[in-house]
């Protein structure tokens, strides 16, 4: 065989064929190499017999057989390949890739740092298990892992020094606002402290997103990827949590069997360290398995969109039928916030998995039905509340919940309008995507306002 140059048309053809074969999950890169060697041997023999390289390539490919049939045979012989490939992903090529390995090392180091970081304040006399220090931990728990997670993406995406600097600044400001306001020395959280603890991660999640998108934050696709990432991370986190629960149950149970109390190990070490480390490990798993297995979030969305739509519709129908008013309890606004949040999640993950080019289908109709029914339910609740809001007075909790409700209402309301127009064919699906991803920072900004402005506004109460 003669030495071929990279611009050789034959090389280009082989390259194309190889790329095509590589997309088959059951055919591993080493197999592709073996098949390529065969193809080249065949081509060389045919060229030696007097054919032109072009003709030889065509015949050799034809003799190789239909790729579908071949990959089916490979799948039958290596059926395990269609399954695993999660943690083993780095070495499917037969040779360990050093990049994948160093990434694994970085992730586990960061997870370890997160686990150690949460115990670090103990050195300064702040004890996790003691009641009076609990507010400190609750206010600050985001800082034990979110900067590390952001750092991981900064490292992985190779972000510029400038972006890096801005992100560091954001975190520094967050640390400041979380801790600078006067706080009572007590083991219970004040209202604004609880709000800070709840809203800080939401505000900082934006920083994680900017690092995750790595320069693509300005694009719809970049933000959509981050939405996908967030959903998958949530699912992985829940799964890891389930495993962790089993581990904890066994730890306590086994030591109890020999009369040793292991509860303090679980409470002081296993639980806090595991909870934070799992964020890192979960994020890495989502990154590693990208494109290997179908994402779970859209699947769950598909399953639950219709049941939720039916539930809300039945709820509305019952409301009208019985003529009952919504019982304005303390937490009713928060309950409706959660409902809208859930609907938003369903909407986001349906959008993230949808082919933007596809025409409207039955599922889109169900989604719109869900959107509209949730909006109506929320407006009924808001109307009930508005009538008596003055009687309530403005507490920080109510203002925060009301603000969130309004933000969600605007988001979903406009989404529903865009969706209806899409169903009627007057605008393209990408408009909905753009609106939805463009709106995401609003949540973080509102959360930041709650963290920064609420404590002084409500007298640090």
């Amino acid at each position: 065989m003669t030495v071929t140059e990279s611009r050789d048309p034959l090389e280009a053809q082989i390259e194309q064929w190889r790329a095509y074969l590589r997309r088959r999950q059951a055919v591993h890169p080493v197999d592709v190499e073996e098949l390529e060697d065969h193809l080249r041997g065949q081509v060389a023999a045919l060229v030696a017999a007097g054919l032109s390289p072009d003709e030889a390539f065509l015949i050799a490919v034809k003799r190789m057989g239909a790729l579908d049939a071949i990959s089916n045979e490979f799948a039958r012989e290596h059926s395990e390949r269609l399954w695993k490939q999660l943690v083993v992903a780095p070495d499917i090529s037969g040779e360990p890739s050093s990049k994948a390995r160093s990434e694994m090392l970085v992730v586990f180091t960061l997870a370890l740092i997160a686990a150690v970081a949460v115990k670090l304040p103990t050195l300064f006399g702040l004890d996790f298990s003691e009641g009076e220090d609990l507010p400190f931990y609750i206010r600050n728990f985001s800082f034990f892992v979110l900067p590390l997670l952001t750092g991981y993406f900064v490292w992985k995406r190779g972000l510029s020094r400038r972006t890096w600097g801005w992100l560091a600044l954001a975190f520094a400001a967050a640390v400041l606002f979380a801790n600078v306001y006067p706080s009572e020395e007590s083991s219970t959280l004040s209202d604004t402290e609880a709000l800070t603890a709840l809203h800080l991660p939401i505000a900082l999640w934006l920083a994680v997103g900017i690092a995750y998108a790595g320069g693509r934050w300005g694009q719809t696709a970049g933000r959509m990827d981050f939405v996908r990432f967030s959903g998958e991370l949530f699912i992985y986190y829940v799964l890891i949590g389930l495993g962790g629960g089993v581990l904890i149950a066994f730890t306590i149970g086994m030591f109890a069997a020999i009369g040793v109390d292991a509860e303090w190990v679980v409470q002081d070490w296993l639980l806090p360290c595991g909870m934070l480390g799992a964020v890192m490990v979960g994020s890495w798993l989502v990154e590693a398995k990208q494109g290997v297995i179908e994402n779970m979030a859209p699947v769950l969305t598909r399953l639950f969109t219709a049941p939720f739509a039916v539930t809300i519709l039945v709820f509305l129908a019952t409301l009208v039928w019985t003529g009952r008013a919504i019982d304005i309890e303390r937490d009713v606004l928060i309950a409706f916030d959660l409902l809208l949040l859930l609907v938003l999640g369903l909407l986001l993950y349906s959008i993230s998995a949808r082919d933007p080019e596809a025409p409207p289908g039955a599922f889109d109709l169900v989604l719109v039905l869900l959107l509209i029914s949730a909006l109506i339910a929320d407006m009924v609740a808001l109307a009930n509340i508005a009538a008596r809001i003055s009687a309530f007075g403005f507490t920080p909790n109510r203002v925060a919940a009301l603000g969130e409700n309004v933000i969600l209402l605007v988001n979903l309301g406009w989404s529903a309008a865009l969706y209806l127009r899409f169903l009627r064919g007057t605008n393209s699906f990408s408009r909905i995507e753009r609106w939805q991803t463009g709106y995401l920072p609003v949540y973080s900004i509102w959360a930041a306002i709650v963290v920064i402005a609420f404590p002084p506004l409500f007298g640090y109460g």
Partner: protein
Amino acid sequence: MNINKDLVAASATPLILAIIAEGDTYGYAILKRVSELSGGELQWTDGMLYPVLHRLERQGYIEGNWGSSESGRRRKYYRITKQGQAQLTEQREQWQMVDTALRNIWLAMSLPAGSITPIPQKD
């Protein structure tokens, strides 16, 4: 001539094992040898050879090793194992049995009934 698919599949294992038993070899050379041996009549779909090779490797009859070809590219060579040798012997006996039986019946069909005694099965 088109050979029945099942027959091709059934004969593939002994053929491949025997060719590898002749000396270490690789995919393309195995197919060339098959074509040589059958006078070009036995044609496999090239790609299908590899899943079969991988199966034999998994079963422990052959082992694969990456070496390099004359042009310097990486190439996977196969060699027969002890277990493979035993398997080949066994398959050979089975095929010989089938072969003998078929020969006898072909012969019987071409001659008047009862005029020959069958070749005894050696066993």
